[in-house]
């Protein structure tokens, strides 16, 4: 397996007048092509900062990010980001179809190709009939589906998701988790999923990276050996799930208490 996302010695310091905040201490990891990796950490761990550095929206202070071998200096081609704030990420002055179409037009795809991608992606997220609505006419869960449709229509090599389901209700959240998981299985897009929810991370990922509290580094790198076919009820009640969950949970607790990872970092 080749590396799709490579992060080496990433460090980010926010400097303002008289204050110097080290958000990210030193992060190094790599995600293989087609892998689904979850990044989990306590709140304030600089998860969003890390994601912005990966997305090329924020320049790191030191270290580097490579996507498919190419260093990231700005938003890289072949990357789509799904933000937590779906309501603010979708363009309210555009219809659902136009929202999905707009990034494709930036890629200068021919019209019929764009229409095909928009229609297919809407069908893939179960919103085939909502294309002509405005996003604000839809429920929160549906809006996030539109954002996901927009991301997959873009045909990215890498999909970044920043706590995408933190603002939806529990039932919708379970549905969206299964949607993302099934899209990943059918499309094979390398996916980095940032969350603060341990259960979500273990349920979704093939791998979970546990971040420490700020200044952030990688505490633990847990391979999730659950079967590829996962189910909200049965998968979550297996002893393997419980063991993985406990391991990640302990890592987070240690991170909150300010202890450095000991046993796990091998």
């Amino acid at each position, binding site marked *: 397996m080749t590396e799709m996302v490579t992060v080496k010695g990433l460090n980010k310091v926010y400097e303002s007048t008289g204050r110097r905040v080290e958000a990210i201490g030193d992060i190094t990891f790599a995600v293989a092509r087609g892998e689904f990796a979850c990044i989990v950490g306590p709140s304030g761990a600089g998860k969003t900062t890390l994601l*912005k550095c990966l*997305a*090329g*929206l924020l320049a790191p202070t030191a270290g580097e990010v490579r996507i498919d071998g190419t260093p990231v200096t700005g*938003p890289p*081609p072949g*990357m*789509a*980001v799904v*933000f937590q*704030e779906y309501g*603010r*990420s979708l*363009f*309210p*002055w*555009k219809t659902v179809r136009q929202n999905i179409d*707009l*990034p494709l*037009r*930036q*890629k200068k795809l021919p019209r019929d190709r764009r229409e095909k991608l928009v229609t297919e992606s809407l069908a893939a997220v*179960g*919103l085939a*009939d*909502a294309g002509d609505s*405005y996003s*604000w*006419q*839809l*429920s*929160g*869960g*549906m809006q996030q*589906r539109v954002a996901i449709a927009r991301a997959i229509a*873009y045909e990215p090599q890498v999909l970044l998701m920043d706590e995408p389901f933190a603002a939806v209700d529990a*039932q*919708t959240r379970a*549905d969206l988790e299964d949607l993302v998981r099934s899209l990943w299985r059918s499309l094979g897009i390398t996916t980095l999923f940032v969350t603060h929810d341990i259960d979500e991370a273990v349920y979704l990922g093939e791998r979970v990276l546990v971040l420490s509290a700020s200044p952030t580094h990688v505490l633990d790198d847990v391979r999730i050996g659950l079967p590829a076919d996962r189910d909200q009820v049965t998968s979550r009640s297996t002893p393997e799930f419980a063991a993985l969950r406990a391991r990640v949970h302990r890592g987070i607790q240690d991170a909150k208490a300010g202890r450095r990872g000991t046993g796990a970092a091998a």
Partner: protein
Amino acid sequence: MTALDTAPPGQAPPVTTPRPRGRRPRVAPFVGIAVAALIAEIVPRTGVIADGVLPPLSSVVAELVSEAGEATLWQALGRTLRTWAIGLTAAVVAGVAAGLLIGLVPVLRAVTASTVEFLRPIPSVALIPAVILIFGTDFESGVVLIVYAGFWQVLVQVLYGIQDVDPVTYDTARSYRFGLRARVLHVVWPTTLPFVFTGIRLAASVALVLAITGELVIGTPGIGQLISVAQSSGATTRMFALVLLTGLLGTLVNVGFRYAERAALGWHPSVRRSENAR
């Protein structure tokens, strides 16, 4: 989640999409107008204020109706509106162009901030003598006054609008590699548009005030000049008829722009009535 496309039938939201205003007849505004008209009719007849100078509303309206049959009034109205429209258009175009440029270039913004804050509060009326000196007494002077006053209204609103661009929306556009043109066209401009409309509405009212003021003070042909002539020739009723006309004009301008705003900003939270707005 299977029932995706429609809201659950159990809960009927009051109003989901923008649709024509409710069927309930709106009485309150008309009561206000009726009371004001009644006062304008009765007070002059009692002779409490400036005996004989104030004509009752009925005779003012009658005068206006008879004036409407004369070409002079329409010519004057046309001239006033021409000054107003040219000035307003120029002010809006210049204000939007300058606003976008200044708003999008942080250096320009920093450099111009103090100048804008100094020039903006100067009342245009104070510039009338200077304008006469430079541009003479033709209608161009009125246009210049309007451009000066309207420009700041639009400029400031455009600057507010650009500041209002949502960072998440902007990051979304950046992450999908929108170029500068696409970012301005699809993110900055739609965010700014409601502010532009506010600016235009403010500028339109100010422009009307200045069009008439210019004619009153400078004597350029138009409604303002007719008012001035009527006053100096003692035609009080005619004078008030013209004043009433300017009032109607102002109302019409305001209502017209509000209507255009609603039509153009169907997606905007101030216009839409969505139960999802929470």
